[in-house]
């Protein structure tokens, strides 16, 4: 993998400490044909996500949205929301951050993974000061038109255990470890 200089785009503390190399720990990633669907126990993510104003603003800027409720602290403070309100797709950085490198669900980092579409339910918008933890478990695994789909259910809670959102996270993956290793070498590890 070529060296991309992501550092010039870092805006938050979490971005500075999060590893940008999805290849490094790939041998620890869950693989489509190895996941034990007999064990559907829900587990915690590797870490929690303490929401700061810089996190909410950075995500809005990253998806090119200048909505002042998401980006302007003074404006949002004077609004009925009484403070910044996150873009609904803020679940994305929360999931990647909390899943981490070694925890269950780390297949979302698989080089070669493809996103077919997603399903998200928001129960309560994310706010500055909340500390989010995730609980996740295998949800479904199927083959359709030669593509291998994996789905996990990911629930997000704040520090008071109030459920904030649920995502059914779905990706199309290389089906075996050998296929994934091909992608690590820059080869196409798929036959569809």
């Amino acid at each position, binding site marked *: 993998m070529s060296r991309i200089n992501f550092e010039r785009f870092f*805006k938050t503390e*979490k971005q500075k400490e999060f590893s940008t190399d999805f290849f490094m720990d790939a041998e620890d990633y869950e693989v489509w044909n190895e996941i034990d669907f007999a064990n559907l126990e829900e587990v915690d993510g590797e870490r929690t996500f303490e929401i700061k104003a810089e996190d909410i603003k950075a995500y809005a800027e*990253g998806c*090119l949205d200048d909505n002042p409720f*998401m980006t302007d602290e003074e404006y949002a403070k004077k609004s009925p929301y009484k403070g910044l309100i996150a*873009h609904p797709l803020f679940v994305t950085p929360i999931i*990647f951050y909390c899943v981490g490198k070694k925890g269950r669900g780390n297949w979302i980092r698989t080089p070669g993974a493809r996103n077919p*579409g997603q399903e998200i339910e*928001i129960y309560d918008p994310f706010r500055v000061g909340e500390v989010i933890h995730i609980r996740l478990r295998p949800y479904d695994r199927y083959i359709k038109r030669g593509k291998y789909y994996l789905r996990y259910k990911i629930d997000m809670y704040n520090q008071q255990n109030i459920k904030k959102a649920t995502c059914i996270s779905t990706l199309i993956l290389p089906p075996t470890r050998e296929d994934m290793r091909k992608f690590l070498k820059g*080869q196409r590890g798929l036959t569809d």
Partner: protein
Amino acid sequence: MTKITFDSVQTGQELAPFTKKVNQEIFWKYAVASFDYNPVHNDPEWVKTAQPFKVPYTVAHGMMTMSFMTSVVTNWAYPNMLRIRKITSKFTLPVAPGWTVKCTGVISEKHVISKGKNYVVVDLKAENQEGALLGVGEIEVVFPD
């Protein structure tokens, strides 16, 4: 601004579009914002041979396209204190660097339940500058009245 009420919205009503031109630098910035460093979005050298989408160039994060589609609704919902409850999406064509992504939304359903539970469904689509369909989505928006 006139406050939007549940009674005032109608099926067929179009929301203001959300349109952005994207490029590799925007893909990198989104990778940083989302923590999604999948090389299919970020590494032009790797993707020349790896080609997960069978194309030799990087493609936008699906979650960025989904974020763009969602912004159509948040631009309308947030100023009016409406609550976004459920978002679903399906991606139909990978987005290449240099494309313009135009997202549009139409209120397709109006669910008359009770005060505080009434909601609408907004049908969304994302197209490129040539009208090719990039993705579709649905968002449920709950009204306070």
